[in-house]
């Protein structure tokens, strides 16, 4: 294949990536969109492999085989609830690949020839440094995020005095090494790997002090970084497909980050530097939980029997309990008995944007029943029974009432304004934000303690028997 044909294939691939992303704007076209993206990737890789300079066919095919096999197995075996971790893991691998590609470029023959002829341009070197720096931070940061989300034992929240100063120092040193790389191309490899090493450390330190539930924001941000790293690699290799695809991902990650921050009413800065003071002002548990009433599955079933419209507000607990199939059964039963069922989806319920939607889709619940926060809030007064399933922060009225609470100003789903609220969770322990929830002690609220899946199944059974 001539270089020009390859370039044209890259252009085609770029267009397909764009059309594929456009497909994701509608559920109906989303599957096709994703396949277009995969096709684009296939075209790009195939065209590259037909490049005249490619000689190491065998090694290449082995490497691709290993990667494809491992990726597919992971992707097919993973539980839907573990999606955040998986994305973090893949993201880290992508970042790692950027580091290695830029490293291989510096180790390659073309580069030594350029150094010898003193025609190594500063722009290419800068891009190489950026690729390594961003890639390495993405790699280690993502792996730490993965470990935290997977709740691996060896990882814990680390924070020590002077941490910010250390981070700053590391950042400055890494950039300094990058500068050395640009100005002393003859020692490029040395500076490059030193820089990447520091950046790996930086990635670890940056993420390790961030709370588990802020991870989604971090992952989106790292996703954006991995895109930017790919773009930087594109500048190194003078390859505009990499530049375009990387920029698309960069934009996507940034926008998701912003959406999440908006929905949590926190600044990106606060997320990254952990300035959420867990419980700055808030009231103690004893003060809040004075009059908590608990209920049983039978009682709930009886209430549902006399209801006309039920709202289910799922949260992270539904993911933990894997309760989505149980919820589907209950929903179908209720619908059969002419009870209207809706779902109130908070934008940051769970641990990823759209987390609840995916779980409920997995359980075959019609996505027309999933309503966004604003819509649900505007019809809250017509709801007879609201079932809060493993959600906590996203229904905490303190966000509205207590301006000193860490979640003050975060928009919430106002279940407290429904006629009756049933809260399904295992205990009175707090959610991610670590604060008590006065909803549990509200006059119209009843607690149904227990594992989410078990509780919902019991309600279904009691309702069916009645």
């Amino acid at each position: 294949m001539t270089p020009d044909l390859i370039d044209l294939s890259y252009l085609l691939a770029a267009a397909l990536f764009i059309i594929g992303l456009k497909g994701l704007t509608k559920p109906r076209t989303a599957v096709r969109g994703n396949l277009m993206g995969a096709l684009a990737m296939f075209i790009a890789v195939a065209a590259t492999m037909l490049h005249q300079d490619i000689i190491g066919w065998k090694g290449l095919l082995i490497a691709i085989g290993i990667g494809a096999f491992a990726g597919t197995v992971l992707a097919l075996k993973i539980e839907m609830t573990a999606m955040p971790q998986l994305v973090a893991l893949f993201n880290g691998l992508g970042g790692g690949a950027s580091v290695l590609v830029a490293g291989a470029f510096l180790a390659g023959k073309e580069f030594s020839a350029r150094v010898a002829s003193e025609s190594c341009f500063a722009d290419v070197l800068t891009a190489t440094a950026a690729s390594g720096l961003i890639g390495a931070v993405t790699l280690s940061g993502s792996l730490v995020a993965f470990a935290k989300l997977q709740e691996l034992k060896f990882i814990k929240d680390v924070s020590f005095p002077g941490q910010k100063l250390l981070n700053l120092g590391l950042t400055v040193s890494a950039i300094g090494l990058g500068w050395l790389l640009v100005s002393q191309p003859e020692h490029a490899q040395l500076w490059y790997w030193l820089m990447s090493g520091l950046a790996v450390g930086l990635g670890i330190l940056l993420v390790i002090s961030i709370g588990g539930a802020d991870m989604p924001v971090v992952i989106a941000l790292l996703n954006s970084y991995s895109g930017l790293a790919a773009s930087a690699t594109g500048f190194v290799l003078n390859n505009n497909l990499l530049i375009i695809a990387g920029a698309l991902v960069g934009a996507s990650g940034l926008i998701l980050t912003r959406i999440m921050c908006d929905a949590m009413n926190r600044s990106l800065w606060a997320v990254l530097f952990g300035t959420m003071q867990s419980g700055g002002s808030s009231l103690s548990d004893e003060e809040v939980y004075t009059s908590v009433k608990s209920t049983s599955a039978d009682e709930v079933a009886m209430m549902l029997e006399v209801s006309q419209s039920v709202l289910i507000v799922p949260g992270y607990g539904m993911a933990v309990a894997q309760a989505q199939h149980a919820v589907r059964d209950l929903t179908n039963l209720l619908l059969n008995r002419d009870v209207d069922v809706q779902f109130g989806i908070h934008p940051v319920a769970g641990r990823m944007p759209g987390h609840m939607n995916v779980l409920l889709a997995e359980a075959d619940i019609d996505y027309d029943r999933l309503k966004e926060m604003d819509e649900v809030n505007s019809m809250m007064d017509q709801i007879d029974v609201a079932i809060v399933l493993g959600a906590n922060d996203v229904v905490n009225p303190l966000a509205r009432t207590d301006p000193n609470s860490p979640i003050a100003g975060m928009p919430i789903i106002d279940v407290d304004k429904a006629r009756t609220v049933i809260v399904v969770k295992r205990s009175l322990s707090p959610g991610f934000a670590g604060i008590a929830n006065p909803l549990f002690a509200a006059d119209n609220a009843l607690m149904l303690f227990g594992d989410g899946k078990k509780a919902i199944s019991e309600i279904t059974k009691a309702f069916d028997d009645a």
Partner: protein
Amino acid sequence: MLSSTLAVQDAVAKTVAAAAENVPQSGGAAHLILLLTVFVLAIFLGVEIITKIPPTLHTPLMSGSNAISGITLVGAVLATGADNGTWASILGFAAVVFATMNVVGGFVVTNRMLAMFRTKK
């Protein structure tokens, strides 16, 4: 003879310099700005498209765009495939494995998720 050779050499040098001048260099600043333009356009385009994606599809978007970021695979293939010496080849090999996992895994898991959305209706 010496002077004649020198004259020829001089002419040669001039020719080379002229050739280098006439042909705008691909590594030059103009080319860089062109690449930058591509980057800027792609960012704008990305922002326009992504803001249209509904919340329901945000998780697939995250994993799908993650798969796209594995485009570094193209760079990795170039790095491994070329006759570049052992060290570069090893780095390239690892890069290909990593990037392929990212790409293939990402698209497969996204497809798995989206297929769930499709089943209803």
